[in-house]
């Protein structure tokens, strides 16, 4: 046939079809994660693929807002494809369930969408499996339960040699609240950490004009990483009562994990910082050797439901299904990670 008359069909950049071999592996993976979530009595929520842009952008970081796939409804309202599921689950709990009757244990397996303007050809649709534990007392028992399920889900996925890092945003945020610095100064420090630039962070700390001891503490906080001896080192870096409370809470969570026999599965890492605005305390990430991006992440977000008028504590995580499949397909035995 004449080449010029047979035009191949195409789809928009950054999207892809999943063919039978990969689809089968994907469904198997989903089944194993589903079993892990349901094993702790979490129930599935299936929600619409697109919602109001205003709602989805509540408490989303600037980058997520900018990267949402937006379009106009026939009534002229701005809509967006969901860029993640946590805000949607918070909406479901406040709109469809009784927030105060928690704890609600919910999970999802869903496709989410983000534009990566600066990176043509990068995926605009990807899949996440995650849980949210909403309402109830919101104590450290809830944090421990969420982290335990995070580890169980990664085990169930069949990954070996992954590492989970536990951080606490409240430790540095508490210190910043206690210091005589302006909100502009705080924003510069946060934006340095959002951009993962320790060079800019050091410059921003130096520009605060604080005494040498405080400067040394602020510089040391994002580098604290290791086993339980981190708590001893961190105790010397406390600035203010909020930071002390945040550190105590992290230590309590760690003790809960220790009691559950999970202490050797996690590393304490006060350098973990998340760019979603809604995280308020505990944050965590999982890494696999040979994969350049985290497998998944989560944390506590006690202020998000207040945005919908029904304040409730909440914590959860999301795992990237493509990322887990990539990590599972890495050749050779996992090396590097201390699991």
């Amino acid at each position, binding site marked *: 046939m004449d080449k010029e008359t047979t035009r191949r069909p195409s789809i928009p950049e950054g999207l892809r079809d999943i063919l039978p071999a990969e689809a089968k592996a994907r469904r198997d993976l989903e089944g194993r994660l589903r079993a892990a979530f349901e094993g702790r009595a979490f129930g599935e929520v299936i929600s619409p693929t697109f919602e109001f842009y205003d709602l989805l952008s509540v408490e989303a970081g600037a980058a997520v807002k900018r990267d949402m796939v937006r379009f106009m409804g026939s009534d002229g309202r701005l809509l967006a494809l969901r860029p993640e599921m946590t805000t949607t689950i918070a909406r479901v709990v406040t709109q469809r369930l009784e927030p105060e009757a928690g704890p609600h244990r919910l999970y999802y397996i869903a496709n989410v969408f983000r534009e990566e303007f600066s990176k043509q050809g990068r995926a605009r649709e990807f899949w996440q499996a995650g849980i949210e534990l909403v309402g109830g007392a919101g104590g450290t028992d809830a944090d421990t339960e969420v982290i335990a399920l995070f580890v169980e889900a990664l085990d169930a996925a069949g990954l070996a040699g992954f590492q989970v890092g536990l951080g606490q945003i409240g430790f540095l945020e508490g210190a910043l609240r206690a210091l005589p610095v302006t909100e502009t100064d705080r924003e510069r420090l946060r934006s340095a950490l959002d951009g993962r630039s320790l*060079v*800019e962070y050091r410059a921003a700390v130096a520009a605060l004009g604080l005494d040498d001891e405080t400067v040394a503490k602020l510089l*040391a906080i994002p580098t604290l990483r290791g*086993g339980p001896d981190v708590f001893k080192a961190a105790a010397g870096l406390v600035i203010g009562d909020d930071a002390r409370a945040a550190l105590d809470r992290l230590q309590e969570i760690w003790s809960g994990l220790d009691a559950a026999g999970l202490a050797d599965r996690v590393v304490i890492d006060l350098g973990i910082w998340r760019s979603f605005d809604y995280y308020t305390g505990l944050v965590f990430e999982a890494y696999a050797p040979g994969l*350049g991006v985290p497998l998944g992440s989560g944390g506590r977000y006690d202020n998000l439901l207040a945005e919908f008028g029904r304040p409730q504590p909440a914590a959860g995580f999301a795992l990237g299904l493509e990322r887990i499949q990539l990590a599972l397909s890495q050749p050779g035995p996992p090396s590097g990670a201390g699991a």
Partner: protein
Amino acid sequence: MSGLEVRPKTPSAALLKIALSKGSLLGPTITALKAAGLDVGPLENPGRQLKLRAAGDVEYIIARPADVPTYVEWGAVDIGFVGSDILMEGKYQLFELLDMGLGRCKFVIAAAKGAPRDADGSNGPITIATKYPKVAADYLAREGLQAEIIKLYGAIELAPLVGLADRIIDLMSTGRTLAENGLEVVDEIGDISCRLIANCVSYKLKSSRINELVERLTERHR
């Protein structure tokens, strides 16, 4: 930042993959790595090899500067050395660990000597030629200026001489090239130097090796 650091329990035996920027940064970076105690023997005589294995479980690649952050972001290498001009022009998810203090220069905006210094576009659009359109756009936004940006791939100084652009935004180290082409600095945009960058996951899983290197590079610096 040393002293208070708690060593993580990740093993240190794994291979550390390092990307170096080809060009003017290469020599100074090798010197700094050598002073920090790394085996740089294979780098001093690379031949046609693209991947260079060195003693002490280190592997080097030498790449075009603009590709170094990409290798690091995707985890093809663990760490890299690259000019902050490249980092400013892109948008990468990676850790910026250390200012190496090497390859210092400046981003400047320059115009032909004698050209009106206050050209603000009120007499028609002004045009800026540059290899760095994002840096140029960020500068214009910050200063509240409006201009048309023309992307070029080299010899930016030529643009005002042939009437392609009113101004240029480019790197300047000594200012000699600008002067030789009858150009002068209108404004300084920012300082540039070589940075040590790390992949987000490598920085966690190989933290003891990477932090050890950071400490040795920092000591040398002081």
